[in-house]
C-alpha cells in the first residue's frame, strides 16, 4: 500500500476557500528509461487523481509521465458544509489508493 498524505484544514468558515495539499509515494516510472542492459523499463504511473467533497467531485487531474515521482498536488475548494473529502489515486497495474479527511465547517 502506497503511503499517501493529505493536508486539509480541520476547521473552516462557511464559504472560505481552503487549500488542500496531497502527496503520494509512487515512482512514476516514465516508460522511456532503459536498464543498463538496454531493456526498456515498463511504464508505471498514476494516471488519475480525483477529489470528492461529500460525494461531489471538486477537482480531478489527469497525469502523464512528465509528473515527478511522488506526485504532489496542491489545489483548493470552497468549504460548503461539514463532511468528508475523499482522495483517490488510480494508475497502471491496478494501482488504487483512497484516503479521506474530515472537515468541520462553522
Amino acid at each position, binding site marked *: 500500500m502506497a503511503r499517501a498524505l493529505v493536508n486539509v484544514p480541520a476547521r473552516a468558515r462557511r464559504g472560505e476557500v*481552503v487549500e488542500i495539499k496531497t502527496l503520494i509515494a509512487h515512482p512514476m516510472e516514465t516508460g522511456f*528509461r532503459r536498464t543498463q542492459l538496454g531493456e526498456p523499463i515498463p511504464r508505471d504511473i498514476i494516471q488519475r487523481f480525483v477529489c470528492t467533497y461529500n460525494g461531489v467531485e*471538486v477537482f480531478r487531474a489527469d497525469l*502523464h509521465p*512528465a509528473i515527478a515521482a511522488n*506526485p*504532489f498536488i496542491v489545489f*483548493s475548494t470552497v468549504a460548503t458544509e461539514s463532511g468528508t473529502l475523499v482522495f483517490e489515486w488510480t494508475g497502471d497495474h491496478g494501482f488504487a489508493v483512497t484516503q479521506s479527511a474530515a472537515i468541520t465547517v462553522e
Partner: protein
Amino acid sequence: MDTSRRLFLAGLGASLVVRPAHATPAAMDEAIARVVGTARVSAERVTLEVSPLVENGNLVPLTVHVESPMTEADHVKAIHVFTEKNPQPNVAAFRFGPRAGRASVQTRIRLVDTQTVVAIAELSDGSFRSARANVVVTLAACLEEG
C-alpha cells in the same frame, strides 16, 4: 509472391523508424490543437510560476494560477500543461468547477531539457487563455538506466 516481398519491405521500413527521444515543438502544437481546436488563445490572466533556471530536471516545482471569479457562470474548467521537448508533450490536465473556489494548482514536473513550458486555461465560456515560460535545465530528467 509479390505480397510477401511487400510485407517484408514494410516490416523493414517499420523497424527502421526510430522513435525520437524528444518531442518537437510541432508535437506540442499538435497536442495543444487537440485541446483548443481552432479557437484563439489569448495570453492574459494566466500566471505560470516556474523557476527560470532549474538545477534538477527530475523535480521542477510549477504553479499555475488563473484570474477568475469561479462562479457558476464564469469559471475555469481546466488547466492543461504542455512541454516542448519532453518525450510526450502532455504533462497534466487539471479539471475544476465552481466548487474549486480558486483556479490555482501547484505540482512538480519533470523536464528533460532546456525548453518552453506552456499552460492553457479552458474557460466555461469556451475561450482559452495561456501563459508560457522558458526554463533552463542544467541536469536533465534522466532517460537512461534504471
